């Protein structure tokens, strides 16, 4: 089973205060720490577990600057074999689709059975890259995958639905799976693994290396353009209930019932 895992370096915003930067189109990342996107960490683990069980290779790909090498190397330290990093100023301003184009161009010449991505990025939360990549490559896909079973050249995957339900689908390989958190227990890299990973080469590819024209990628190739960030505005439609909890809860229940929402 030859596998590709796409990983993204993201800022850790869980316990930090987040401010919009002076451009108005990004957050101020100066004081944030960075790590692998959480769902991607599970995707890496899933690929490595399959490799350990059934054999094969795991290639790690990331689109980002030099600092992304840290996330790539950690995935290599856990059991990844080879790595590619896509870096080009032309990628700036990419949306999920533009990123999918770059990743698809990078994997199309590789031998692969499964491409893994995380289901959702912790920073922009598009949830689009994996699915768009499958479409561009013309292969099957399943999103929000919480279970993977391999049977010959077919796979059976469980997709997470609302309420914790799983929907099982069977598909032919190759395929793109976007992995949901909780599918496995991601391991820690070992010291020896890190030492070996530090010596591995990470292949660097530009847009030109991938045969991509500037009009296809970055802001030019994106369907969605980020205009600006604003904090949520308190709408005029909002009705604030005041009073003791027993009283406000009962009024809230009344309103929900009246509007037919429950």
């Amino acid at each position, binding site marked *: 089973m030859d596998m590709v895992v796409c990983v993204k370096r993201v800022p850790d915003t869980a*316990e930090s205060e987040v401010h919009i930067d002076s451009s108005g189109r990004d957050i101020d990342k100066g004081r944030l720490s960075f790590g692998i996107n959480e769902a991607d960490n599970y995707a890496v683990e899933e690929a490595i577990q399959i490799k350990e069980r059934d054999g094969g290779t795991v290639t790690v790909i990331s689109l980002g600057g030099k600092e992304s090498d*840290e996330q790539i190397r950690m995935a290599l330290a856990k059991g990844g074999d080879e790595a590619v990093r896509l870096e080009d100023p032309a990628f700036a301003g990419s949306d999920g689709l533009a990123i999918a184009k770059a990743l698809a161009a990078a994997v199309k010449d590789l031998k692969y059975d499964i491409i893994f991505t995380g289901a959702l990025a912790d920073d922009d939360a598009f949830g689009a890259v994996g699915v768009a990549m499958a479409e561009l490559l013309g292969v099957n896909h399943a999103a929000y995958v919480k279970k993977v079973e391999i049977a010959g050249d077919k796979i059976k995957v469980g997709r997470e639905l609302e309420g914790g339900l799983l929907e099982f689908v069977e598909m032919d390989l190759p395929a793109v799976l976007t992995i949901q958190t909780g599918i496995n227990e991601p391991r820690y890299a070992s010291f020896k693994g890190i*030492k070996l990973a530090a010596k591995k080469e990470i292949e660097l590819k530009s847009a030109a290396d991938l045969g991509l024209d500037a009009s296809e990628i970055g802001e030019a190739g994106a369907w969605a353009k980020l205009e600006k960030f604003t904090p949520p505005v308190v709408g005029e439609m909002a009705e604030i209930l005041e009073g003791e909890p027993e009283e406000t809860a009962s009024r809230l229940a009344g309103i929900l019932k009246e509007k037919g929402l429950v």
Partner: protein
Amino acid sequence: MLFELAEEERLFRSMVRDFAEGEIRPKVDELWEKGEFPYGIIEKMGELGIMGIPWPERYGGSGGDYLSYVIAVEELARVESTCAITLEAHISLGSSPLYYFGTEEQKQEILVPLARGEKLAAFGLTEPEAGSDAGNTKTTAVLDGDEWVINGTKCFITNAGTDISAGVTVTAVTGQDDGKSAISNIFVPKDTPGYNIAPKYKKMGWHASDTRELSFSDCRVPASNIIGKQGEGFCQFLYCLDGGRIAIAGLAIGNAQGCLEECMKYVKERVQFGKPIASFQAIRFKLADMATQIELARNLAYKAAALRDAGKPHTKEAAMAKLFASEMCMAAATQAVQIFGGYGFMDEYPVSRFFRDAKILEIGEGTSEIQRIVIARELGI
């Protein structure tokens, strides 16, 4: 001159931090309240190569440098000190004499399982009458045929009484040299008859660490268990202690960093006089000082570790790092409790534990007073 870790060291740090957050953080309350030795966590640390970071792979280690090991101790202590001191005592005190001064046979037989984390190592130096005055060691080892017969008592020994303890390297008087006791280091396996393990101490901090009194009554070990040459014990443990001091500085830095992070969260949430206390200058200055002191201590400790890795003299820098970091940590923990006010005095608040874990750092592996003596001596006065 840019003070920046290499990518490999940043990855090590990130891995140990993830490990401490994922495996130790959820058990912090239990470790403190029950005081039971964390076998499961130590086993996992062994599997990841943390228990043998600085030793070469041919001896079961991870082939890392001393700086990476100090960073690991720091990252563990940032969450909780038990695993940090267990690792510190295991590597700097327990395993070091074997690695630096042991024979190839001793390394293969004793060091390999230690480096893999299958067994734990301890060092027995302190005695009821020999603390800072290590030369006053009373424990004796007498050669009887091809065996050493050891008698004496050691106190405050960490890692010697667990189910996975390999044994302890003790300092023992093996003769006289110019009227002074000639001290040698001898490895005593835990299952040796006469190796008596007292119950665990009840301590102010480090509740789950395995720290005990040991006594030896006609404890017989093969003559080949001596480490290095007879009479070289004093020089050996001074070299090991230089390394240990840098690692204790790592423990102090981690503890202080833990205090700072707890305070950073609390001061934004705690409201007094209608405002988060983070807006008050009295609090802001305390945190600014704390962060500054941590940064200084870290730079000093990393420098001492880098000197050791480069094979350069580092006795002075190690003593300075230990002295400054441990006193800095005590001050930081004191201010952290002050910032938390009455809550800081409560057991369930992490800062009260950081405070109690901090004090020993000014005492163990050479008191602050001893560090000042060492530094003054290194200055040439």
